[in-house]
């Protein structure tokens, strides 16, 4: 056989084999790896059809149904739990660490790990249907203290939001020079719902924080910001009991929202707000608090400094928040408490409150701190 013919046969054979295998791969991809369309039935009423093969969390998000997630679907926060009422196979090793035994009995799964391969039926809390993604624009950035910024966002699309005072939104940090992929962080809304087309957040600068670095160093008025929400079960219960609020720093946000709404409704309940801080430079919105005291006859604002500097000339309460609390709250009768802050502060103040006799169920706290 001539050399040229040999060469051609050789080339032909390689092309032949490779083409054959490539065609095989394409067929396999279209059949084995193709999961077709999948129908997701939610709460036995709503139905959405999505492309199969992808995790439940992402597919629902594309349909504008937002299941809470802090890690963006990577399986590291455990927040995206969903009750599944149809058969989806065994738990994956990546889900097991997050699912307790009671949750296993209820067939609660981690929606970011569950790949949709066939029709599925799930159950989610009704409030999640109210969660939407909002395009907003930065209306103003005001420094409240050396490390807390007040961010006001004007809603663009949709242009109104309905929420309960005390709830929070998820703020999306887009990809920019410091983050290769977008990241979400939760912030409580310090604005009250009657403000309609704008929301206000209190953001505290966290060293090495992705979102706070973005807000403090890169965000400008007029910038576009995407948020979604509202989320959260921290809100004022409709009762007649007296109220004790305890929150320091940016923890004031949900409390401010609640107080302004109380003022609008002329709520007569007696309320005391214990604001714990270290020195005078950590105090802010003092004028607004004074104004609230005039509008709400039953309301008193009690700031307590644990480490006042000599130049502060501080005449108010001093000491740890727990000490000031014990001093003012003697009896837990007819009392409800609302706390927002770090786990350490919450644990310590809960102890003090329980000692006054207030029942544990009447102590509410903003848990995501």
């Amino acid at each position, binding site marked *: 056989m001539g050399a040229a013919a040999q060469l051609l046969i*050789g080339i032909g*054979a*390689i092309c032949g*084999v490779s083409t054959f*295998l490539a065609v*095989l791969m394409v067929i396999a991809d279209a059949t084995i790896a193709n999961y077709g369309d999948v129908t997701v039935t939610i709460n036995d009423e709503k139905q959405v059809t999505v492309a199969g093969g992808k995790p439940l969390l992402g597919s629902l998000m594309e349909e504008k149904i937002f299941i809470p997630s802090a890690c963006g679907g990577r399986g590291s926060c455990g927040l995206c739990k969903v009750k599944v009422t149809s058969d989806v196979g065994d738990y*994956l*090793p*990546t889900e097991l660490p997050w699912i307790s035994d009671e949750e296993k009995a209820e067939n609660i799964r981690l929606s970011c790990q569950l790949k949709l391969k066939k029709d599925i039926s799930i159950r989610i809390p009704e409030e999640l249907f109210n969660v939407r993604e909002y395009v907003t624009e930065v209306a103003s950035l005001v420094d409240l203290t050396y490390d807390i910024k007040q961010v006001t966002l004007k809603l663009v699309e949709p242009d109104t939001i309905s929420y309960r005072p005390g709830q929070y939104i998820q703020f999306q940090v887009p990809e920019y020079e410091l983050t290769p992929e977008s990241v979400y962080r939760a912030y409580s809304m310090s604005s009250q719902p009657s403000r309609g087309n704008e929301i206000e957040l209190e953001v505290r600068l966290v060293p090495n924080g992705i979102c706070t670095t973005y807000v403090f160093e890169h965000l400008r008025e007029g910038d576009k910001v995407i948020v979604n929400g509202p989320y959260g079960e921290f809100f004022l219960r409709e009762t007649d009991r007296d109220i004790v609020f305890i929150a320091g720093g940016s923890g004031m946000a949900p409390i401010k929202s609640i107080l302004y709404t109380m003022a609008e409704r002329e709520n007569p309940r007696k309320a005391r707000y214990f604001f714990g801080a270290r020195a005078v430079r950590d105090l802010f919105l003092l004028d607004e608090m004074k104004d609230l005291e005039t509008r709400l006859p039953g309301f008193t604002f009690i700031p307590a400094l644990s480490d006042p500097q000599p130049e502060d000339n501080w005449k108010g309460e001093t000491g740890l928040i727990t000490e000031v609390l014990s001093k003012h709250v003697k009896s837990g009768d007819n009392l409800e408490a609302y706390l927002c802050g770090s786990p350490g502060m919450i644990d310590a103040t809960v102890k003090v409150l329980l000692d006054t006799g207030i029942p544990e169920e009447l102590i509410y706290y903003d848990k995501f701190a």
Partner: protein
Amino acid sequence: MNGQVAFYAIFFAAIFTNNILLTNYLGMCSFLAVSREVSTSAGLGTAVVFVMTATSVLNWLAYRYILVPLDLVYIRYIVFIVIIAAFVQLVEMVIERVSDKLYAALGIFLPLITVNCAILGVSLFMVIRNYTFVNSLFYGLGSGIGWALAIMAMAGIRQKMVRSRVPKGLAGAGITLIIAGIMALAFMGFSGMIKIT
């Protein structure tokens, strides 16, 4: 080159006396990277056994029915590699479809296997040694098992060594290669017991 050796001789030789990893020193990179824990090694070992056996069969068929008749033996390198890559891809797709659990356990190893030179090595050896179909099947199976055994033994040794004071310069790849060398020396003691070439 005797192609008439009994398949069981080839099978045992591939595991012990002609271990693809310790005698021929093929498949070292995943061996070094993954051999820190016995459980991960077992996972990778299983996947390698499966892929090695299947690809040696497929490659034998391609060699016998395509390459030889067309006198294209010289392009076997390309054809074998393409078949191995396609096969691993297919296996990954099937596992992902059939069992999420198995995919989560093994799936991450599959891309590693495609570039494992031991797989190509097995196919090439069977061609050089002129093995029959049955011999090739058992050669692939035996080599896979031999490789898996070697990696699990290495993982076991490294787990036991966790408490030892390895000199700073040798930590990691250095000491692992020395251990592999000593293991190879030990396995050399088996050579001559079974003749398979």
